[in-house]
């Protein structure tokens, strides 16, 4: 291990980072896999038994318990797919518009990017007030048009509002990434295409979109990973309710952290969650890479 030139110094330099990383990532991940096959109750004072795939069977195939888990998986996918698609669609268009030489573009960018730093609690709380069904401004406007809704309290629509707020909070980040991609496209391409008579729309299809491909890949992967895993904004806005209508898998795990079944069961859920994220990201990555090379 000792370095010829520097002795033990390099080892001392990496030591704190390695120790913290080993404990908080490696050890914990291994422990999670191991615990998912046991009936661990949160303490080693009680007997811990090896139960094989029991926790996984319970989570995915048992008649009662699996209902909540599968429902959470379904909601996770609806949430993740809608946010990823809508967010990237809007972010691309807005980035292109923001890239034109208009006077206010820096102002637009500043405003649209702002939620990225506001944090989930400020965002979630603000929208919870605004969407409040009793005296919230949104419902007040609905009432003026003779429409009444429980908004976040209505289990049929609550998820759509949460999706909207998630997009509101995150598409500025995506837009700025697209903008940086746009700015790396050589201007000569647009100039020469203009000489040949291409309009703005044609330029978008034949120059901008193909050259933006790598950024599209990055952005979509970031959105997928973020939406499949995060649950803090939903926790602030609805705590997963009403009637679990906005409980994604991440939130389901968080809320059942002290599950009466066992903590081993929760560990199994975490691993299922990880596998879902891993498989989806893997498929998306190879699909997007293939698309990139086709062009």
């Amino acid at each position, binding site marked *: 291990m000792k370095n010829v030139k520097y002795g033990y110094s390099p080892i001392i330099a990496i030591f704190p980072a390695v120790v913290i990383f080993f404990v*908080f990532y490696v050890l914990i991940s291994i422990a999670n896999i191991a615990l998912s096959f046991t009936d661990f109750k949160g303490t080693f004072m009680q007997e811990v038994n090896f139960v094989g795939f029991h926790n996984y069977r319970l989570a995915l195939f048992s008649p009662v318990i699996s209902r909540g888990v599968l429902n959470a998986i379904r909601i996770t996918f609806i949430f993740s797919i809608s946010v990823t698609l809508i967010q990237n669609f809007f972010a691309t268009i807005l980035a292109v518009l923001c890239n034109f030489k208009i006077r206010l573009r820096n102002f637009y960018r500043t405003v649209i990017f702002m939620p990225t730093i506001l944090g989930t609690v400020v965002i979630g709380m603000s929208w919870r007030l605004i969407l409040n069904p009793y005296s919230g401004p949104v419902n007040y406007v609905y009432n003026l048009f003779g429409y009444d809704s429980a908004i976040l309290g209505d289990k049929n629509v609550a998820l759509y509002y949460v999706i909207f707020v998630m997009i509101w909070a995150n598409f500025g980040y995506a837009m700025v990434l697209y903008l940086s991609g746009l700015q790396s496209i050589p201007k000569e391409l647009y100039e020469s295409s203009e000489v040949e008579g291409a309009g703005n729309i044609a330029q978008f299809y034949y120059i901008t979109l193909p050259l933006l491909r790598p950024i599209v890949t990055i952005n979509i992967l970031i959105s997928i990973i973020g939406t499949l895993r995060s649950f803090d904004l939903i926790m602030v806005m609805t705590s997963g309710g009403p009637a679990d209508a906005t409980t994604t898998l991440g939130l389901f795990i968080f809320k059942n952290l002290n599950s009466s079944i066992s903590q081993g069961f929760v560990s199994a859920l975490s691993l299922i969650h990880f596998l879902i994220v891993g498989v989806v990201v893997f498929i998306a990555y190879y699909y997007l890479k293939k698309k990139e090379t086709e062009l």
Partner: protein
Amino acid sequence: MEIHRSRKILINMFMGLVSSVMLFPILIIVNISLKTRREFIQFPLSIANQINIENFAQAWDKGDMNLFYKNSFIYTIFTVIGIIVITAVASYPISRKHLKISGFLYKLFLSGLFLPTSLVPLMYLMRSLGFINTYHGYIIFAISAQIPVSTFIFCGFVKGVPRDLDDAALVDGCPYFSYIFKIMFPIMKPAIVTVAMLSAIGVWNDFIGPLLFLVDRSKRPLTTGLYSFFGQFFNDWTVLSAGILIVATPLIVFYLSVQRHIVSGITSGAVKG
């Protein structure tokens, strides 16, 4: 890109619409926070007819904002210092390949970006280390959460610093650590600023971590403090809005003052990856 005048107007209209959707929630909250309770109930959407700071005073007092501000500052400052010292020092031998396992370590740290959060063992670990409801416990947890991103940023930066400098210093007999602290750190300043900003925003806004590990009221930061404040005063809209603004204002001021750095800092990691 150049564009026709008529199209410019259309674009401005569309962007103006989007910007107002972005600003709308903040303006509504500001408006509510300035009203008296009575005015709000009678005219929820009207513009506040006078500037009334009573709500802010009440939110600050009842919400224990002094305490939560103090806690948030403690967590943020110590985590930022910790993460910079630990990962900047580690990134030097890693990106210079001073160890046989340097390449492996780099990939290992990066894998942390994708590893699942294993809440059960994490909870057990924090409890058995006595880290629950302590400043140092949460700070160590927060540092661990920032390791992958900051190693990534620092290593990327150090790779761009010419090696000639290292060799010259070695010939002069400069000790390893004084080289890192006295020569590398000043050179790494742009990367340090980026990491400081990213991790500060991350810790300041962290919600799930404090919700799990800082249960005790006296240890709560602003995020969970505000969250619990909501539970207590869920009918007192004008005070709640003031509470939200008390928490949001430093973030908005910080953002507007160093906006360019934040935007480029937050996006730099993603694009290089």
